[in-house]
C-alpha cells in the first residue's frame, strides 16, 4: 500500500501499468477474432461486445437486472454479516459452546453452496429467495469463521482485567473483544462480499432468478453471443467495484489499527 502511494512520484505509476494491462487484454480480444485466430461467431471482437453493451444499456431491463443483482448481493451479505458476527461473538465467547459446535461448523462449512441449488428450488422455486439462500449460506461461513478466529485472538490479560473490573458482558464485548475481532470481521466482510457476488450470479444463471446472471443465460439461449459477453464484462466490473469498495471499507474501519496506520508502518 505504502509502496504504491510513494511510487506515484517515480515513473511509471502503478495505475498506469494496470491500465496498460487492461488495454492489452482489450487489444487481444479485439485482434484475435479479426485475425481469424478464434472464430468470430463464438468470440466476437471487443468492439462488437462494446456495441452490444451500449445496446443493452439503453434498455430498462438491463438496469432493472443490475439493480436486482446488487440488491440480492447486498441483502445476502447483510444477513450473513449480521448472523455471522452475532453468532460468532456468542459461540466464540463461550468456550464449551465453541468446542461443541466446532465439528458441526467444520462439517457444514465446506459444503459447496451450489450443491444446495436443488434444495433451494424445492423450497422457494425460481424466485430471488432461492439465490438469496445460496448467497447467505456461502458468505455466512466466511464471516463466522473469521469472527471465531478474532474472538480467540483476544489478549487473555485484557479479558481477565475486564472481568476483574466487573465489566458487564456487553461492555466487555464493546471494549475488549470487538476491537480485537474487528480486523478479522473486516476480512470476513471482504471475503464474504466476493463470495456473495459469485453465488448471486451463479444462482441467477442456473436457477433463473432475476438479475444479470439470468440475462446472460437468456442471451446464451438466444444465440446473442456479443450481448452475452457484454453482460459478462458488466459482471466483471461489478466484481472489481465490490472488491475495491470492500478494501476501502476495511481501511476506513481499521484506520486506527497498526496494520493500516501509515505513521507506524515502515
Amino acid at each position, binding site marked *: 500500500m505504502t509502496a504504491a502511494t510513494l511510487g506515484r512520484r517515480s515513473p511509471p505509476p502503478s495505475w498506469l501499468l494496470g491500465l496498460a494491462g487492461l488495454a492489452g487484454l482489450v487489444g487481444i480480444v479485439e485482434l484475435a477474432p479479426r485475425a481469424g485466430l478464434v*472464430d468470430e*461467431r*463464438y468470440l466476437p471482437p471487443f468492439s462488437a461486445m462494446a456495441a452490444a453493451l451500449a445496446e443493452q444499456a439503453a434498455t430498462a431491463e438491463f438496469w*432493472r437486472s443490475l*439493480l*436486482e443483482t*446488487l*440488491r440480492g448481493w*447486498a*441483502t445476502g*451479505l*447483510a444477513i450473513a*454479516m*449480521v448472523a455471522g458476527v452475532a453468532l460468532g461473538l456468542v459461540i466464540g465467547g463461550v468456550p464449551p459452546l465453541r468446542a461443541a459446535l466446532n465439528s458441526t461448523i467444520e462439517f457444514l462449512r465446506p459444503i459447496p453452496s451450489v450443491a444446495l441449488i*436443488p434444495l433451494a*428450488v*424445492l423450497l*422457494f*422455486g*425460481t*424466485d430471488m429467495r432461492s439465490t438469496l439462500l445460496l448467497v447467505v449460506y456461502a458468505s455466512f461461513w466466511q464471516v463466522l469463521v473469521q469472527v471465531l478466529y478474532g474472538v480467540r485472538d483476544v489478549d487473555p490479560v485484557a479479558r481477565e482485567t475486564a472481568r476483574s473490573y466487573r465489566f458487564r458482558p456487553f461492555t466487555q464485548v464493546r471494549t475488549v473483544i*470487538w*476491537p480485537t475481532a*474487528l480486523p478479522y*470481521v*473486516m476480512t470476513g*466482510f471482504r471475503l464474504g462480499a466476493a463470495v456473495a457476488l459469485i453465488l448471486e450470479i451463479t444462482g441467477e*444463471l*442456473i*436457477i*433463473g432468478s432475476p438479475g444479470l446472471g*439470468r*440475462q446472460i*443465460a*437468456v*442471451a*446464451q*439461449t*438466444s*444465440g*446473442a453471443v456479443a*450481448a*452475452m459477453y457484454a453482460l459478462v464484462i458488466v459482471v466483471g466490473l461489478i466484481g472489481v467495484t465490490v472488491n475495491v469498495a470492500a478494501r476501502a*471499507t476495511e481501511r*476506513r*474501519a*481499521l*484506520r*486506527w489499527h497498526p496494520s493500516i496506520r501509515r505513521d507506524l508502518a515502515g
Partner: protein
Amino acid sequence: MIKPRAALSAAVLLLALTACGGGQSAAPEPGSSASGALNPVKVSVIPILDVAPIYLGEQQGFFAAEGLKLEIVTAQGGAAIVPAVVSGQVDVGFSNFTSLILARSKGLPIKVVAPGVASTGVAGKDFGGVVVKAGSPIKSAADLAGKKVAVNTLNNINDTTVRASIRAAGGDAKNVSFTELAFPDMLAALDKGNVDAVQVVEPFLATAVKNGDRVVASNYVDTAPGLAIAGYFTSQQTAAGKADLIKRFTAAMLKSLRYATDNPDAVRQVLLKYTKIDAALTGSLTLPTFPTEVDRASLETLAKLATQDGLVESSPDLTELLP
C-alpha cells in the same frame, strides 16, 4: 470511538441498497389497471421461442380479461419447472410432453392444462431439425446410424424423435451414439468436428442454415404429422384446489395461441421483448405451430417411443395426464 462508526456506516449502506431495491419490485405492474382485483397466476416458463404466445397474450390483455394477473417466472430448464409446479411454488409450468410422460410414470401428480407448440409438419421447414456440416457425408436420417449426434437432453423428446426419424428412413436407430450438449454450444461443437450432427431448434436452426450447415432430417415431422411437442401443465392439487383459476388460465392461453397463429409478425416482434435474439435473425426463423387442442395421438406416439427406447417401463395412463 470513531472505529466502529465506519463499520456501521458500511452496514447502513448495505441496508439502504437493500431497501431501495425492495421498493422497485413493489411497483405496480402496468397491465393491472383493469377494474377490480385480479387473481394472480404464476407461470414458470423457459424464455425460448415456444412460449411467445403467453407473452403476446399478456400484451394483448387476454389474461387480464379473464381476471388474471399473469406473473411469468423464467427458469433455465425444465428440471427446475416440474418441482416448482409440484410443490405449488408456481401454478402452471411449461414443459415438453416426453418430460411430462416421464414425470407422470414416476408418479408425479401433474396434469396438462393447455397446448403449447407443435411441429409445422413440413419436412425441411420445421422449427427443429438435425443439422450437419455442409461437406458431411451424411445425406439423410438413415446415414446417422453409427454417428455421434448431439441432443440437448439425453433420454428425452429429442433423442427419441431422432431415433424415430432414423427408423422412418430405414436406418439402424440402435446404433446412434447420442451426446448431451446445450443448444447454444451445439453449432460450435459441430464446427470443431466434436460431433457429426446436432439436433437444434430455433434460433440455432436459422443460424446454422445461415452458416451454411445442412438440414438432413426434421425429426419432429418424421415422428408423426403435426407432432405436439410441449404444453402447459399444473399439479393435480392446484387443478383441484384452484379449479376456477386454471380454467380461466386455459381460456386465456387458448386465446393467446390463436392470436399467435393469426399474427406471426407479432410473434417475431414479441421475441425481441423477452429473448435477446438478434433482430436481423427473427425474420428468418421458422415458427412452430401453436395448436389450440392437446393432441392425444401425439402423446400416445411419444409415450410409445419412450417405452420403445427404454425411458419408461410402461406407458403411464395418459387419461390422467390429459386435461
